[in-house]
């Protein structure tokens, strides 16, 4: 399925989903990027995984972006069977960044979400074990946020 077809099928089912940059027609071989509100992420991903037209069976990456006034969670999906890719960007509140976890759909999303939580403090609601994954258990703050300033400890 090419990008334009993918986009029209997604927006047909979820009208709140918008194309992130209007380039699907131009960039035929590039990854389609769409933006979606945080509330629609779980139903959208459920549809993308379970509908055999989309068949996104693999989550390549879930990451965070700090845009200073807001945070962003970015999902990269891939279909091993149909060989198409999709990027979903969702904007989150900078003070209370919360989005539904998709780890119930893809097992691989588990650690990606833990990493995004560890680095950006994005809370994935419904995650089975949302704890720090890379930094130490007693680490304070979210180190990849722009306003992060670490306090010197006895190792500095």
């Amino acid at each position, binding site marked *: 399925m090419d990008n334009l077809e993918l986009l029209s099928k997604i927006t047909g089912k979820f009208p709140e989903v918008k194309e992130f940059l209007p380039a699907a027609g131009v960039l035929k071989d590039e990854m389609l990027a769409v933006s979606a509100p945080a509330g629609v992420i779980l139903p959208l991903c459920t549809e993308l995984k379970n509908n055999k037209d989309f068949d996104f069976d693999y989550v390549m990456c879930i990451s965070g972006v700090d845009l200073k006034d807001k945070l962003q969670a970015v999902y990269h999906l891939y279909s091993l069977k149909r060989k198409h890719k999709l990027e979903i960007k969702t904007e989150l509140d900078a003070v209370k960044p919360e989005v539904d976890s998709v780890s119930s759909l893809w097992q691989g999303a588990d650690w990606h979400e833990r990493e995004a939580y560890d680095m950006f403090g994005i809370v994935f609601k419904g995650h089975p074990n949302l704890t720090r994954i*890379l*930094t*130490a258990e007693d*680490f304070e703050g979210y*180190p990849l946020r722009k306003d*992060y300033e*670490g306090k010197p*400890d*006895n*190792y*500095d």
Partner: protein
Amino acid sequence: MGIILDKAPYLIEKLPGGGLVITSMDWVINWSRKSSLWPLSFGLACCAIEWMADVGARNDFDRFGVFPRPTPRQADLIFISGTLTKKMAPRLKRLYDQMAEPKYVIAMGSCANTGGPFYDSYSVVKGVDKVIPVDVYIAGCPPRPENVLLSILKLQEKIMKESILKK
């Protein structure tokens, strides 16, 4: 062995000719210690890959008695080969504590010496000497095998200067 090394030197020193006995004992003990420096097979980052090549067949550190051991109970020496993160630091301290005396530490590469290119990171210890005492520092990123070899020779020199009377 511990009681003999702790008590006997101070008794022997008072006897006529005891000083000569002490220096002879020093030499034998130091020689045996420096000739069988068994390092712990322990690695942290890319320096560990370099270190594995160093103790391999081409450079053959075994000719100096450097022979990796898989447990800290049997190791005299620990190479800190790589970046020490703050999460790893308590684990390294624990490994060091599990090693039997006498024990020596060689900090291998820039990361182990000072934190290296990760000095400004939120997660990297700025030099392994913040956690455990270091005997020899090796510069390099990673150090050349010759440089690692030199660190062992330097450590052997240092061991030969030790005396059972000190401490």
